[in-house]
């Protein structure tokens, strides 16, 4: 009964989505206020209905209702409750439901935080989002229904893929989808602006916080996925340039470009057409990512069961949404007009160069991901494009982008002077170069890539310091602290996000340069030393979990005779799918990770064991988290607060200055 309620709620949601996707758009076109006002209740109603469906599916998992096909396929009576609930998004159908649910969540957020928008704008935004949601709801109801019954019911379920039975995987998809789907808001803003023909600075200002929040979620989502691969796949890598990873990375690159381009549109009124195109691109790439992952056109380690009808549906949907918006773009964008002009050397030009580099980098990832498909479709054969391609193409493209990142914030809008910039940055530049060349020698090894990585990281930090000093220098204040506090939060957000990049680069550079790994056979009582840490193997015992049995190894780790950690890697066999999983043991530290995983048992209690010493590896994810924090800090800036609150703030400011002048 409960699953049928969920199914029915989805059908009702389709009806509401049809209303939401048509009436407000029509109302906005003809200026009918009554029709436009339908958008808000429709969006909220749709949210409620999808929420009901989501809860119904959750209930089916919690109650172990194996008469629901999807539940039987992705859970098992022995699977613990929290993983049963996470199994809602453990496979295709449920992921779509999560996607749609998050889309309606964003819609509700738009209805709440859009009081200050003109009515027609809000109606158009919600209308466009309603159409997107309609597509996904229809997709579910036609070829991917999560509530489909299995009659007779299965005795027990086939269990959730053991790879996904992990806390990181519980959080990864919702975060990623919050990001993917969040770009739909920026997309809807862009389409609404194209429809209404009012692409102005106010439009950019409204779009900015939405884009930034989506970008923050996407950043965290990608970082979680990479962290998950690091400890769950058991070979210590953190990025594989797999098509599915690329699918999440491409919208991130486009979104990063969008954030910066929006800044120009907001502050200088420039780049309007480009910004609109980026907004369309960011969301299109999110949709394309879904298509690549869900249709099975590419082979990937994340292989999902493929159904040709599904691929066809998503492709048709892609064609309508992306093709339609690009057509609208081609029709409307020529009338938008240009923003203010700028010189060849100016903050605008640097942001533009950075944007182009990001988009070209995105294009290179897209090409690498789809190249096997292109050749195949042209009958030229089949190839697989591996990390060597991505490493050789991506690094040279992103290096100048990072270099510009240091200069951009310092350059003046409209017209900057190259000699003046050189003067401002001469210390930052020379100290970065000297440190980058010498530091690797101090660390004990010099390679060009090591030096380059450190150069970029130090460059970001030193230019940021120069930038802060400049900004403070322009303020007249009593103390340094009050000057720093006077700088807007949006500025601090940028500083933090850029430093996050620096930390991220340090992480990659140090791991690539200094990681030590050792594959060896260890008998009970054997010791091995890597990176100054001595590991003693104490043997392995049988342990059993709720739905698996495991061999659990014990390692005693010491450094210079002092005890550092007890580590317990496991080799698990999940019984339902008879799948072996390697659970690495990781001792995390600020400057290094120790990583132990069990290979295969060898006779006499010995095991083949893999030991890693990974310096600074956590800086990779730490950097991502700091980037996301920077984004959130920027969003909290008062310039984005809804108008009424800002007005109140300005009143208070005015009062304060009056009282000051009176005093």
């Amino acid at each position, binding site marked *: 009964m409960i699953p049928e309620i969920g199914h029915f709620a989805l059908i009702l949601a389709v009806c509401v989505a049809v209303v939401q996707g048509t009436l407000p758009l029509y109302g906005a076109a003809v200026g009918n206020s009554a029709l436009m006002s339908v958008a808000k209740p429709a969006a909220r109603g749709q949210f409620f209905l999808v929420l009901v469906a989501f809860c119904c599916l959750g209930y089916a998992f919690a109650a172990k209702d194996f008469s629901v096909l999807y539940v039987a396929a992705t859970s098992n009576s022995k699977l613990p409750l929290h993983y049963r609930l996470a199994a809602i998004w453990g496979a295709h159908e449920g992921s779509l439901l999560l996607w749609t649910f998050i889309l309606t969540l964003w819609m509700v957020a738009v209805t709440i935080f859009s009081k200050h928008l003109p009515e027609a704008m809000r109606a158009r935004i919600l209308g466009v989002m309603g159409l997107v949601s309609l597509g996904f709801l229809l997709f579910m109801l036609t070829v991917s229904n999560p509530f489909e019954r299995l009659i007779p019911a299965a005795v027990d379920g086939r269990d959730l893929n053991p790879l996904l039975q992990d806390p990181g995987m519980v959080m990864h998809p919702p975060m990623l989808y919050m990001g993917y789907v969040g770009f739909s808001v920026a997309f809807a803003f862009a389409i609404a602006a194209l429809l209404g023909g009012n692409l102005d600075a106010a439009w950019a200002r409204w779009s900015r916080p939405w884009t930034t929040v989506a970008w923050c979620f996407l950043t965290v989502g990608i970082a979680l996925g990479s962290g998950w691969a690091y400890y769950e796949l058991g070979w210590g890598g953190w990025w594989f340039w797999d098509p599915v990873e690329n699918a999440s990375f491409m919208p991130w690159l486009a979104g990063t470009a969008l954030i910066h381009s929006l800044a120009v549109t907001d502050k200088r009124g420039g780049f309007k057409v480009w910004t609109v195109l980026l907004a369309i691109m960011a969301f299109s790439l999110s949709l394309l990512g879904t298509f690549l992952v869900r249709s099975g*056109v590419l*082979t990937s*380690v994340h292989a999902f069961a493929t159904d040709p009808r599904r691929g066809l549906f998503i492709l048709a949907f*892609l*064609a309508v949404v992306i093709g339609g918006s690009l057509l609208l773009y081609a029709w409307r964008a020529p009338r938008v007009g240009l923003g203010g002009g700028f010189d060849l050397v100016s903050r605008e030009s640097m942001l533009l160069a950075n944007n182009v580099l990001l988009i070209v980098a995105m294009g290179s990832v897209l090409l690498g991901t*789809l190249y096997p*498909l292109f050749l195949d479709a042209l009958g030229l054969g089949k190839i697989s494009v*591996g990390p060597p391609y991505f490493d050789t193409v991506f690094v040279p493209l992103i290096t100048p982008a990072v270099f510009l990142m240091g200069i951009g914030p310092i350059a003046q809008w409209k017209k900057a002077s190259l000699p003046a910039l050189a003067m401002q940055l001469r210390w930052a530049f020379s100290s970065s170069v000297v440190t980058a060349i010498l530091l690797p020698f101090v660390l004990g090894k010099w390679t060009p890539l090591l030096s380059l990585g450190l150069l970029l990281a130090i460059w970001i930090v030193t230019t940021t310091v120069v930038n802060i000093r400049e900004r403070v220098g322009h303020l007249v204040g009593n103390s340094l602290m009050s000057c720093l506090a006077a700088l807007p939060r949006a500025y601090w957000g940028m500083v933090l996000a850029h430093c996050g990049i620096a930390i991220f680069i340090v992480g990659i550079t140090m791991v690539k340069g200094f990681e030590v790994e050792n594959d060896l056979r260890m008998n009970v009582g054997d010791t091995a030393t890597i990176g100054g840490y001595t590991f003693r193997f104490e043997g392995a015992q049988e342990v059993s979990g709720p739905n698996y049995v495991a061999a659990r190894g014990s390692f005693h780790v010491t450094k210079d005779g002092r005890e550092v950690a007890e580590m317990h890697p496991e080799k698990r066999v999940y019984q339902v799918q008879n799948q072996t999983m390697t659970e690495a043991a990781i001792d995390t530290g600020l400057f290094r990770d120790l990583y132990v995983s069990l290979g295969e048992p060898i006779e006499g209690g010995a095991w083949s064991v893999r030991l890693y010493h990974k310096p600074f590896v956590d800086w990779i994810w730490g950097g991502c988290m700091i980037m996301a924090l920077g984004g959130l800090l920027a969003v909290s800036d008062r310039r984005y607060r809804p108008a009424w609150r800002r007005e109140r703030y300005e009143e208070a400011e005015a009062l304060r200055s009056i009282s000051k002048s009176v005093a």
Partner: protein
Amino acid sequence: MKRFLLPLAVFVVLVGFLAAGLTLNPREVPSPLVGKPAPPFRLPQLHEQDKTFSPSDMAGRVWLLNVWASWCGGCKEEHPVLMRIAKAGDVPIYGMDYKDRRDEALTWLRRHGNPYPITAMDEAGRIGIDYGVYGVPETYVIDKQGVIRYKQIGPLDDEIVAKKVLPLVKELQSK
């Protein structure tokens, strides 16, 4: 107007390819080499550099030639299947490490297990050209006379092994 249509044009081309992609199976390709003698080569071995390996060493036996590389994602997927074949011992699998670095290849084998009695090292990928290696992994079934009887492009899975490879191997062995 024209330059504003450019994104749409790019997208239309992309959709065309994606649509074509839907009709294709990324793992199945006919090969002109099937039925022809396996191109000869003599390559250094991965483990013992001073020794070499050549298909002619295998004359009189039915064997599999598996092209792999440590950088290849599909190989990771395929590897457990190869390990099972090697364990069952129905047919020997010889490896050809394609456009790879020796140290990385050795680490990879230590890590995932080594199903190959011998792996030949095609560092420059020259022999790959003779064999028409499109992508890695690829697997060839070669008969007693040194003729290629089957070519698998992309990872082997248990179903293909059970339905195609092993029956073919049995048939060829009995000849």
